[in-house]
């Protein structure tokens, strides 16, 4: 053993650094939150080797109103049911004669025009569920009738057959969403810097010490401790990639997608990432094109996704992004310039493999009654299954047990 290893001066510098990092660590802990806001990132690298395909799943939490984002302007009932908040058809983008996009989605038009963006309308759960909480569980579990909490993305990772130490690996902090929850280890981190063994900067003695404590393998945590250290090491290339977050918009979602892009550019074998965008539950003050929550959230959604695809560099041809909500909203507006909980919704697909520039799905005739829903004509699992099949070639009965498979056809 050595004696004095460092001078007081070094000590104070280290103390200050630790204090700051410790504080930030705590702040990130506070729900990946103080820094990322309502956009929380989780990632699951399935292999240390380069991934062939990367799937980003963006959950629009709170039930986004698909009828405001992908507007059925060709159905007059839309305008009858929404006398104050309907979007005038002359303001819409990407019009195809029936549908048009919200004008604040302008940032997505380059992807649309390049055929890299598709909208699938009137999608949802097989059975309506208006509880955010229950619907998210069902949507992400995607295995009706099962009582095991095991998400569809976790099942997807279980099909890769990968034996790398990174398969079976979580990193980071925070409560893992249901879609990723299950026996396949995954990672969760709100920031690239959070993927670390805290104390590594004390020197190699930190790792040596942990090995001394855990390598005898006598406790159930011993393998987890070893895998954690290996995973952090395998993640190292991400730390070396450029932090491009300054080029993104100043929004929670953009900050989250900047982290996602950096992880993907690190090319450490991450196959699936999930991401949340909050604040979609617009019972009041969804608003108009002049004011309200919809214009803000729509722009955040579009501009962050646009910046994300522009930031992927050589990895871009691998990356597909899917966005969805737990359910949709009512057809008719309420008294508060808002919309209550409904059923069917639009789903969104971008990037690799997408046969884009058009709208998909069978759109039912709208009804203008107090509690009328957009009915569901496409089981959301069939949309996800198109992506899983096209990009991963995975077994659909394994990933979506019991699904009556009907391809939607928006993937190459």
């Amino acid at each position, binding site marked *: 053993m050595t004696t004095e290893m460092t001078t007081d001066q070094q000590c104070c510098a280290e103390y200050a650094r630790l*204090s700051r990092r410790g504080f930030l660590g705590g*702040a990130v802990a506070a729900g990946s939150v103080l820094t990322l*806001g309502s956009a929380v990132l989780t990632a699951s690298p399935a292999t240390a080797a380069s991934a062939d395909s990367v799937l980003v799943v963006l959950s629009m939490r709170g039930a986004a109103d698909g009828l405001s984002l992908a507007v059925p302007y060709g159905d007059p009932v839309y305008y009858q049911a929404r006398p104050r908040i309907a979007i005038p058809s002359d303001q819409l983008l990407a019009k195809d004669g029936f549908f048009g996009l919200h004008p604040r989605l302008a940032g997505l038009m380059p992807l649309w025009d390049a055929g890299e963006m598709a909208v699938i309308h009137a999608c949802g759960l097989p059975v309506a569920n208006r509880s955010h909480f229950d619907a998210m569980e069902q949507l992400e579990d995607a295995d009706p009738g099962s009582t095991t909490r095991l998400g569809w993305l976790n099942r997807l990772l279980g099909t890769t057959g990968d034996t790398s130490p990174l398969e079976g690996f979580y990193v*980071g902090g925070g409560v893992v969403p249901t879609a990723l929850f299950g026996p396949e280890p*995954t990672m969760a981190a709100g920031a690239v810097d959070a993927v670390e063994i805290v104390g590594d900067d004390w020197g190699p*003695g930190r790792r040596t010490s942990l090995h001394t404590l855990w390598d005898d393998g006598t406790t*159930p945590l011993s393998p987890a401790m070893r895998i954690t250290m290996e995973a952090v090491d395998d993640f190292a290339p991400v730390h070396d990639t450029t932090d491009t977050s300054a080029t993104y918009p100043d929004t929670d979602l953009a900050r989250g997608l900047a982290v996602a892009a950096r992880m993907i550019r690190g090319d450490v074998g991450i196959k699936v990432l999930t991401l949340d965008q909050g604040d979609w539950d617009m019972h009041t003050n969804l608003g108009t094109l002049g004011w309200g929550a919809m214009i803000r959230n729509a722009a955040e959604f579009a501009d962050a996704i646009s910046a994300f695809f522009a930031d992927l560099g050589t990895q871009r041809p691998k990356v597909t992004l899917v966005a969805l909500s737990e359910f949709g909203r009512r057809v008719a507006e309420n008294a508060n310039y808002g919309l209550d909980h409904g059923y069917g919704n639009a789903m969104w697909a971008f990037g690799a493999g997408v046969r884009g520039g058009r709208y998909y799905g069978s759109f039912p005739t709208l009804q203008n009654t107090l509690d009328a829903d957009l009915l569901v004509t496409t089981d959301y699992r069939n949309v996800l299954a198109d992506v899983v099949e096209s990009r991963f070639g995975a077994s659909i009965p394994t990933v979506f047990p019991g699904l009556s498979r009907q391809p939607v056809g928006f993937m190459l």
Partner: protein
Amino acid sequence: MCAESEAAENETSRRGLLRALTLGAGGALAGGAGGLVAAPADAVAERRARTCRCVSRKRCRCACRGHYRATCPCTRCHGPHSRGACPCHRHEGQPPTTGGDPGGDPVPDPQGPPPPLLDDPAGRVLVSRFSHGVTPALVAEVDAAGGAEAWFTGQLRPDAIEDAAAEETYGWWPSLAYPPATLWSRHTAGTEYGWQVMQSYQRWLLMRRIRTRRQVQEVLTAFWENHFNVPVQGDSVFVHRVGYGRAIRPLALGRFEDLLKTVTVHPAMGLYLGNAVSTKAHPNENLGRELLELHTVGRGHYDEDDVKDSARILTGWRVAGASGGWAATYQPADHYVGPVSVMGFSHPNADADGQAVTMQYLGYLARHPATAQRIARKLCVKFCVDQPSAGLVDLLANTYLAGDTAIAPVLQALVRHPEFAAATGAKVRDPAEDVVATYRALDVAIAPPGSPVPEGHVTNALLWQCNNLGAEPQAWPQPNGQPADNESWCSPVRVAASLDLHVTMSGGWWPTVGATYRTPASWLPGSSFTLEQLVGHLAVQVLSQRATPSLVTAVSQVTGYAPSTTMSASHPIVRWMFPRVLTTLLDSPLHMTR
């Protein structure tokens, strides 16, 4: 009605967001549960006769071989015991033999008093599994009680234990005491949203776990509150959720039948699993099914017809909506009338008031052998090992049935079983357990939050720390409750987050508002000591265990000093490397398992 945008600005964690999102209508109802059923007096006398001869309150005689114990385990003296299991230290798990009881004056215990807890590995397993972390104060309590088992027996009567430090925390969050109608009106007015009340509730639970001297009761409360899971984030559940947890606590060491009756008809459960809006025309099968599948017998013992009748029996227990102040009511007009049959239970169910048939049905389920097996196994997985032997599960199930669903005798049979003492280090702390145990280990003093709660106050941070480790208390989002096995809490995500927690807390770097950490000087064993002596002292002070050789080596490696290094308060290890030393203790298996 939802009000998430302000909520998200206040606190934008995913959890907070989810909570803010979920507020709908619903209705449900409450009602008193059935009362305790007293065991026949002759049965009590018979049990007493078979297991011990009381010599005095502190000294009694085991019926098996005439051994004496420091503390009487019988119902008359100190606490309940399990029939058929010898409470003697020497005969754990063996049935008592008849005869051989000389009676007469007390004789010296051939074993002598139990060793101090620090030198009693089996006793330490008991205290660790049934507390939220062993501390020097707890060690002193155990030693004063006459050993781990005597302490445990005393803990089974929590009302006799002074607990002011934990009790006062209830007043730290005034909304915990508000009635449902008040909570709802504050929620709709935007004064305090339901999810904020639920966060206060979760924080209160964590504070209780840190402070309470009724550790066994609190550990079992967490166990049952998870078994009968009503997630705090569910819809309108918040109006009744605090009352739900507070109804479970006093029953946590009582009888399972009473627990089952209380939770099944509680308005929080009714709101969560839909029984609050169930009618005879359209029975909502959610609670009727989970009652069978999760709360009692488990899958494989019933069919879909049983589920239908299970739901029919439960119709009538309603909860008024917001306009009715969320009052729990029984509505005979909604109760399904007609013969019902669930497994071996059948009833003419002819009365529109179905409260009695509900209670009979729940009593049947509580006493079902399949329920006994499920509860026994679940207790084993939580408190002993993930793969308990069939013999142990059977013993506990039989104890449960013999004791008319009494919980304490089952726990006593468990802790006296050889498999229990052998299970050192076999259970991983879950996220909330790690957070709570870390505060206890580091002896962090926590001040009341006050009003308004200062930004970053430690009582707020406690919950964020749990979230960071992957699970907040009572927030598991499905009715089955969070898993108790090790594997669920061995993910790399969790491990890395725990290491972060330990480092941050060891340095006293965060949280700081309202938290007072001990100074390095206060942890020292004297004015001059070796590193090895320091580790030995800290292991006892922080972990309430003897230091292992690998712990000494690990601290030596992380600091870069030899174990034999002599030092004082001015040494760099004390002056600025102390967080490394403390975190190495907390990062060790000695702390991360329980």
